[in-house]
Structure formats: structure tokens, C-alpha cells
């Protein structure tokens, strides 16, 4: 059974040449000035641990906590088998896959609680809750 190690919404995800990942601007609240307008871009990032290498279907869904689906993505986490090399030490760390989705131009129907849900073969792995709140304009005298 895949295990979610990290799952978050953030402003940006950057991958370094050496394979390290930097997650910038983690948040758990959408501040929306006008629900008729699209929000600024954001990212969904997840690091998932698997028992073995292979291709694993992963579904990511954004929905209200009441269950109204906003969108659903069908993705595949790919963990290629890395050929062993005598000059490299073998590792016993379980293989992991990173999922990174950039969401642009999303509009939400209303304020309230939402969640990002991760599934593998229709089995729920984890949810991340996020709240959409109305961003009131700053009061200027």
C-alpha cells in the first residue's frame, strides 16, 4: 500500500539538479477576493512511498468536504528500476515518487472547507484540508 510522506499545497516547487526538492510557500488557506475570478496559480505536491518499483495509478481530487468534486486528475506515479552499478552502494530505502501539479486559473464556487484527496486504485490514501475564506479589502480612510 503506498504511503504519503508529504502532501501539501504551496506557491512553488523547485527541483535541484541533485534531486533535492524545495517547497516554497506552504499554505492551508485560499484567500479569495472575488469567487467569480480565478485564483492565482498554486501547486499540489506529494511525495509517496511505495514498496517496489513500478507504475502506480494515483488519482488526485479537489473537492468540498461535503463531497462536491471541483476537479479530478488521473496520474501515474512512475518508479523506474535503477540498474545496479558496482561502483554505487545498494540502498534499502523504499522507492518514492514525487507528484507535482501546477494549478492555474482555478476558481472555487464559494468559501468553506475543501480537501485534496489522494487515491490509489480507488483506495483513499490521504486528504489535505484547506479553507477558502473571503479576502476583505483593506480599509482605507
Amino acid at each position, binding site marked *: 500500500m503506498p504511503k504519503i510522506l508529504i502532501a501539501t499545497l504551496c506557491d512553488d516547487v523547485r527541483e535541484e539538479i541533485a534531486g533535492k526538492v524545495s517547497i516554497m510557500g506552504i499554505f492551508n488557506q485560499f484567500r479569495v477576493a472575488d469567487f467569480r475570478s480565478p485564483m492565482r496559480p498554486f501547486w499540489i505536491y506529494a511525495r509517496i512511498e511505495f514498496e517496489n518499483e513500478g507504475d502506480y495509478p494515483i488519482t488526485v481530487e479537489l473537492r468540498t468536504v461535503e463531497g462536491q468534486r471541483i476537479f479530478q*486528475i488521473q496520474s501515474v506515479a512512475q518508479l523506474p528500476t535503477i540498474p545496479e552499478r558496482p561502483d554505487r552502494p545498494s540502498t534499502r530505502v523504499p522507492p518514492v515518487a514525487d507528484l507535482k501539479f501546477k494549478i492555474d486559473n*482555478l476558481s472555487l464556487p464559494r468559501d468553506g472547507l475543501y480537501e485534496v484527496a489522494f487515491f490509489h486504485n480507488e483506495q483513499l490514501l490521504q486528504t489535505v484540508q484547506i479553507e477558502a475564506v473571503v479576502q476583505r479589502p483593506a480599509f482605507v480612510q
Partner: protein
Amino acid sequence: MQPIGQMPRYSYYIAWSPEDRQFVATFLELAGLSGLGDTIAEAIKELNEALRVWTETAQKENFELPEPSMQAPCVIVDARFMGEDPYITELAKVLPGEFLPEGEVGQTVSLSEVIKVRQAGQVIEL
């Protein structure tokens, strides 16, 4: 021919197809349609052409298309194979293995090794 303005404005999902070695664009609301392309723009153009044909078929065959799920089309990009500018900075990730010497797919190659290959007269398309 269906005018573009009368077609439903669905949201896009852009990913990379390792089998086709091309970008693949689908609609979130109508996952059965897809478009392939060497660039994201090409994939989206092909997808919209598929939607145009499908919309005409729906009118002829009298079946309903799903309603767009959002007020404005949302664009979701599977960014595992892309950087901010895939064609300049991250092309090796967009086309994994494409730039590695024969038999070295899946392994890292240092810059000095690339230079050696170039000096040996082998062409690496960038």
C-alpha cells in the same frame, strides 16, 4: 463547422506521455478526448480540434456533452517533467534519457562526460 465560441470551455490537464514521448492534453470534464504534441501548444490545438469534431458528433447524434465544471477554464500541468522553461532549462527532464549516451539511460552524466562525447564527434541535439 462548429465555431470555437460555441464549444464548451473545459479545463485542461497537461501531462507528458513517456510512451509517445510527447505532451498529452486532456479535458478534466471529458477525459476520453486527448491531443498529443511536441509542445504544449500543439497538444492543446489537437485537443481542441478533437473537441470540435466531438461537439459536431454530439449535435448530429443528439447526445449531451458534460457542462464545464468551472467558470473559466483551469489549466493543470503535471510538472514532474517540466521546469519553468522546459525548452531552455529543463529539456533533459522533459525528454528523459534523450540526451544520455547509448546504454546510459537512467544514470547521471557529468558535464565532462558530455564534453568527451562531443569531442569524440558524436552529435547531441540540444
